[in-house]
């Protein structure tokens, strides 16, 4: 018998604190698998955000820094400028990256900082108990949009990937999802491509991963996957938003 699937080396054996069915766990694993496959575990430095994934430093079997809320791209800039030959990534939620950390992610992209961002968009603030995120859908109920998000009061969802794709320093931007095994495979491919471009010194790369928050969506884990597919994807279309010209790589 050969093993076709087991825990990647770049994950520790710690049990996560994530809620049952929360897809943060899948995304962690994908990142770890990619690091394993590229053989860069001992030269990778990760940055965990403030959000449900704040404790990612306990789960990745890597050198890690824990960054202030929204500032992971700045922290990663500091790390990468010192460790030019290492692989650096940030792992950030939508509150972290698309709200308080808007300036940091945009300017890391504009500077073409040579690291990779894994952007976990679950359309909610998970850790603090379900407040509206910039990515919360119209009509979605949250603790701070109790009547459902109303554009005249709370504005419109932001499509970060599309926005970041307008920036010259960003070389690869893609939106993926993890709501079924096929999409999980695609997500992994995109993450791998981003890391490879980083290794080639190409500049800023970001993978937006649509993710579930069953707890704060008030759904079962399985319902949450369906909600993601049915409600989120129409607003946040999957696909590559920016990529280096064909043949360039």
């Amino acid at each position, binding site marked *: 018998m050969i093993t076709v699937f087991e825990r990647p080396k770049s994950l520790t054996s710690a049990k996560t604190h994530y809620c049952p069915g929360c897809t943060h766990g899948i995304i962690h694993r994908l990142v770890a698998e990619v690091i394993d496959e590229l053989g860069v575990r*001992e030269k990778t430095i990760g940055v965990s955000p403030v959000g449900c994934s704040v404790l990612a430093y306990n789960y990745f079997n890597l050198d890690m*820094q*824990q960054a202030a809320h929204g500032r992971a791209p700045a922290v990663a*800039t500091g*790390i990468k400028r010192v460790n030019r030959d290492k692989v650096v990534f940030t792992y950030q939620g939508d509150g972290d990256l698309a709200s308080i950390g808007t300036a940091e992610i945009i300017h890391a992209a504009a*500077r073409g900082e040579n690291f990779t961002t894994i952007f976990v968009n679950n359309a909610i603030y998970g850790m603090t108990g379900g407040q509206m995120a910039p990515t919360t859908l119209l009509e979605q109920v949250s603790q701070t949009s109790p009547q459902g998000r109303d554009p005249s009061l709370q504005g419109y969802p932001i499509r970060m990937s599309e926005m970041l794709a307008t920036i010259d320093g960003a070389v690869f931007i893609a939106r993926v999802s993890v709501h079924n095994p096929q999409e999980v495979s695609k997500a992994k491919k995109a993450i791998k491509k981003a890391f490879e471009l980083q290794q080639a010194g190409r500049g800023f790369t970001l993978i937006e991963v649509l993710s579930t928050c069953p707890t704060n969506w008030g759904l079962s884990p399985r319902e949450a996957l369906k909600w993601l597919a049915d409600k989120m994807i129409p607003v946040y279309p999957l696909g590559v938003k920016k990529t280096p010209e064909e043949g360039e790589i």
Partner: protein
Amino acid sequence: MVKVLMKGNEALAEAAVRAGCRYFFGYPITPQNEIPHYLAKRLPEVGGVFVQAESEIAAINMVYGAAGSGARVMTSSSGPGISLKQEGISYIAGAELPCVIVNMQRGGPGLGGIQPAQSDYFQAVKGGGHGDYRLLVLAPATIQEMVDLMGKAFDLADEYRNPVMILGDGILGQMMEAVELPSEDLSLKIPSKPWATTGAKGRTPNIINSLYLDPLELEKHNLHLRNKYEQMRQESMGETYKTEDAELVLVGYGSAARVAKAVVDQGRARGLKVGLFRPITLFPFPKDDLQKACRQANDVITVEMSLGQLIEDVRYNLEFKVPVHYCGRVGGMIPTTRDILAKIEVLANLQGEGEKV
């Protein structure tokens, strides 16, 4: 070495380079802009990196990342920018990372003005950010001292794994004075940093972190930090000038102390037994030296470019044993020797009368 004339900001920047600083992250603000201007040119020459961050917040968090990776790294700013860095500074203190932060103070509050002031004293020494932490705070009074303290700042930062603040002001940043730079020591010994994130090659992962969800753990961490702050007391420094027999002691730091020093001579010329105590470390405050300097004193006057901040620490550290008076200017105004002499004479007269009673 020969003395050269240098602008304070540039001398400080060059001194940082000679202390092994290779990374600077900052954002423009008057009156410290010559620091980034200088380093934007200079750092690439020595294989270092200068990044103009998108904001002071980004800058301090870049410092966090670079310091966590083991580099000698600094940032600099003034009033509003330093306020914006408070969260980041608290994180750096919490994660016990070494770095140097320069504040070339200007008048506040709010946008305030851009002329020299010392109104960020409390922010520097009491911790303007949240949580129980302290910075080591160094207050140079001349450009030479700024240069000398820069090397010291990096050493202390590494030794204590704590952020060190150099608290200057617009005068020290903008003026030119004669200065002798330390040699470019290529064999500079920077302590090894086995805790830094460099990729977990052949070892267990290093984690840079300030989160402790278990309150007992966080309490332990806090007590560890407190011990460190206690330890730092041994680093306290102050300068005394003619205090041996001084019946009146002026206390001031930085630019204000320069003026106070001139007053000591002028006062002595008038037959008044005046002396000066100048704290060089503002945290830890040089309590013993201050007390010693004030042994003979009937009165103490703080000379400060703030509304009465230093005075609180002086009273506290003198334990209210000697009356402490305030003599200051604010908002970009500089105390003049005339202001201070006037204050001294009022006190001298009062005392004369007091003695008659």
